[in-house]
């Protein structure tokens, strides 16, 4: 819990302070050593977690997510066959499984957003925010709004839940038919891992500071 002081005196410039986003406790912002994190004393929320080359890493992960998502959409995902009958489904087919022309259609829209659109859009917004900073330019127009949206979308990005859902569904199907795994299945699995790495190296405090410095 280094890098911060509790009980901040009055008259300290605003940009030297940090309020815990979880519980609002106020601290002196001091950059913790590389690889360590500043944590709120009160609620243990993470305040600052700088990493060496963090922006480069974050952008690299985000680009990977976009590429893997594109692959996962177009390559075959899963297939089954039993007694001469066979069927294949792509990720998009899965999302559109509720498309019955009736009121279940709405659910397909949600699923498309949760497992395809939002995970991809988050990565694109992060690239939009950070790529110009990475090459030493001023942020693009609306970069702040883009980054805020990317952060707001976080709970609605459900790629990891989808892949666990796959595991559960496959156990059910395995009794019924033989299952074939397509390349998209492994791409989606990799995408989940890269998203976790992306979230782990994304430090809001450093990004907002960098946006303030450069624009």
């Amino acid at each position: 819990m280094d890098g911060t002081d509790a009980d901040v005196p009055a008259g300290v410039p605003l940009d030297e302070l940090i309020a815990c986003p979880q519980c609002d406790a106020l601290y002196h912002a001091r950059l913790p050593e590389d690889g360590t994190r500043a944590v709120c004393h009160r609620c243990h929320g993470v305040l600052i977690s700088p990493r060496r080359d963090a922006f480069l890493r974050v952008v690299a992960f985000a680009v990977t997510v976009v590429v893997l998502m594109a692959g996962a959409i177009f390559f075959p995902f899963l297939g089954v066959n039993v007694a001469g009958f066979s069927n294949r489904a792509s990720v998009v087919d899965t999302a559109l499984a509720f498309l019955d022309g009736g009121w279940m259609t709405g659910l397909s829209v949600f699923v498309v957003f949760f497992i395809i659109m939002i995970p991809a859009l988050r990565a694109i917004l992060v690239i939009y925010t950070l790529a110009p900073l990475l090459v030493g330019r001023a942020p693009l127009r609306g970069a702040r709004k883009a980054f805020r949206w990317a952060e707001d979308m976080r709970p609605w990005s459900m790629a990891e839940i989808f892949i666990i859902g796959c595991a559960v569904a496959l156990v059910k199907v395995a009794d019924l038919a033989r299952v074939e795994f397509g390349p998209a299945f492994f791409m989606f699995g990799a995408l989940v891992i890269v998203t976790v790495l992306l979230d782990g190296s994304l430090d809001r405090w450093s990004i907002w500071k960098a946006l303030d410095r450069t624009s």
Partner: protein
Amino acid sequence: MRQERCERCGSHLQSRDWGSLQRVWAWLVVGMICYVPANLFPMLRTQVLFNTSEDTIVEGAIELASHGNLGIALIILLASVAIPVGKFIAIAYLAISVARPERLRPKQRHRLYHFVEFIGRWSMIDVFVVAILSALVQLNFAASINPGPAAITFALSVIFTMLAAISFDPRMIWDNDGRGPRA
């Protein structure tokens, strides 16, 4: 406060949004209402050769357990029953506890909030399972699986309770600790 908007990111500023509790309750109640049909109507329609069966969430889990897939049955029960119900209780408790002095320490209540926010999304697992099964198992008359009406009400229940958790401002938990404005 003089400023209405954050200079940095442009979002709306409000010191303590006590009206947020109303939104929490509203989303929570709608979420609970959606959870009722989600358990009464079938989640899956399975047709194997000439047999058609309809399973609700709980029936589906029991079916899995009877086939020997105990672990998977437990995951489904955990994600579709234990987590949503636990979440209703936890959010209601937090919303009540910030309005009156509470014996449980803020640290524990904050941990509870964090847990609820983290775990809530995982309830969607059953909706994705239904989506994958219905997309994959379409083998003419040999076997086919189709979603039942419970899928959408269950998904809505999860979405509404997620909105309830997001509407809750965890900073309110700390306002009664003797340091905040409402000491």
